[in-house]
């Protein structure tokens, strides 16, 4: 029993050591955004308990900012739920992409699904995990560390209010840079870039047509329609090329 437990601990610790470096850029980005969120909640008249609880339970950055303004508006639970689903709809895509990877991970799976924010999904989907590192524990620690960063940032921001004087303007670019790097790695890994182009063109066109606040749902619909319409050439690019 003792040996088994030790083995188990070692497996988890090894995965933690492998996962931590992947989460460092998230730490920078999440502390910046999390602190900004805490300050915003504080400035809106809420004690640090609110950003603490919201960052821990909702755990989805953009929605949490909006929740603060919802708390200051008249009570409208149904509208709040619809709004939340619309803002978070992109997570449906993450789930579809992780269906296979999360298979057979036992109890960890529930937490992995609960904590699957943009950044955690991107790391867990794209990270190259060596064979001797436990996949389940790796996903688990990436998810847990990221959530700790976010919750601690939001709480610190809520406690400090506007006491911060260090000029951190532009630090949130860490998140953009993270997605650029993951995008680039994915691009270099694949032979055909049809899906990447579909994502790029759909989002830019929808951003221009629908504006910054309302473009994500139309983008998702466009991506689905185009991926479905071009399924044959995407699945068999060689054959489609021969046919021409």
């Amino acid at each position, binding site marked *: 029993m003792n040996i088994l437990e030790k083995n188990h601990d070692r497996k988890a610790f090894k995965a933690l050591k492998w996962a931590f470096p992947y989460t460092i850029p998230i730490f920078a980005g999440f502390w910046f955004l999390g602190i900004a969120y805490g300050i915003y909640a504080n400035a809106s008249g809420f004690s640090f308990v609110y950003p603490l609880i919201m960052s821990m339970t909702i755990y989805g950055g953009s929605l949490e900012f909006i*929740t603060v303004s919802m*708390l200051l508006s008249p009570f409208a639970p149904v509208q*709040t739920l619809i709004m939340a689903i619309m803002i978070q709809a992109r997570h449906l895509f993450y789930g579809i992409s992780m269906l296979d990877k999360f298979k057979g991970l036992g109890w960890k799976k529930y937490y992995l699904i609960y904590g699957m924010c943009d950044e955690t999904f991107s790391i867990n989907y794209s990270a190259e995990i060596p064979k001797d590192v436990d996949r389940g524990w790796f996903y688990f620690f990436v998810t847990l560390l990221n959530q700790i960063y976010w919750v601690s940032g939001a709480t610190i921001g809520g406690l400090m209010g506007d006491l911060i004087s260090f000029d951190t303007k532009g630090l949130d670019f860490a998140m953009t840079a993270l997605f650029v790097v993951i*995008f680039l790695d994915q691009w270099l890994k694949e032979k055909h870039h049809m899906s990447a182009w579909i994502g790029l063109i759909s989002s830019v066109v929808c951003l221009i047509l629908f504006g910054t606040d309302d473009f994500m749902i139309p*983008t998702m619909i466009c991506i689905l329609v185009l991926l479905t319409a071009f399924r044959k050439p995407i699945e068999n690019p060689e054959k489609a090329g021969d046919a021409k």
Partner: protein
Amino acid sequence: MTITQQVITIGMCVLGTVLTRALPFLIFNGKRPTPRYVQYLGKVLPSAIFSMLVVYCLRNVTPLHYSYGLPELIAIGVTVTVHLWKRQMLLSIASGTVCYMLLVQLVFK
């Protein structure tokens, strides 16, 4: 809002988030084989998603007004160049971010 109403409001946001994260797993729970079409989506969606997330991060850039998206363009250029050169995720992200911070704090004020 009363405390109860606040709790319900936050609860609705939690419910909405959990639903969007869990729904694919609830529908395709492995008891029946996942349809081929969904397997196909799972394989090709990520590339489109990463494009979408990059655009999402840049949604507030104003290419037609000051600063014309220049700090973003330059910082992304630096990130990509460093990444193609060294292939070290942390280094690429750090260089891009430091470059961006210097640009927006000192050059494009």
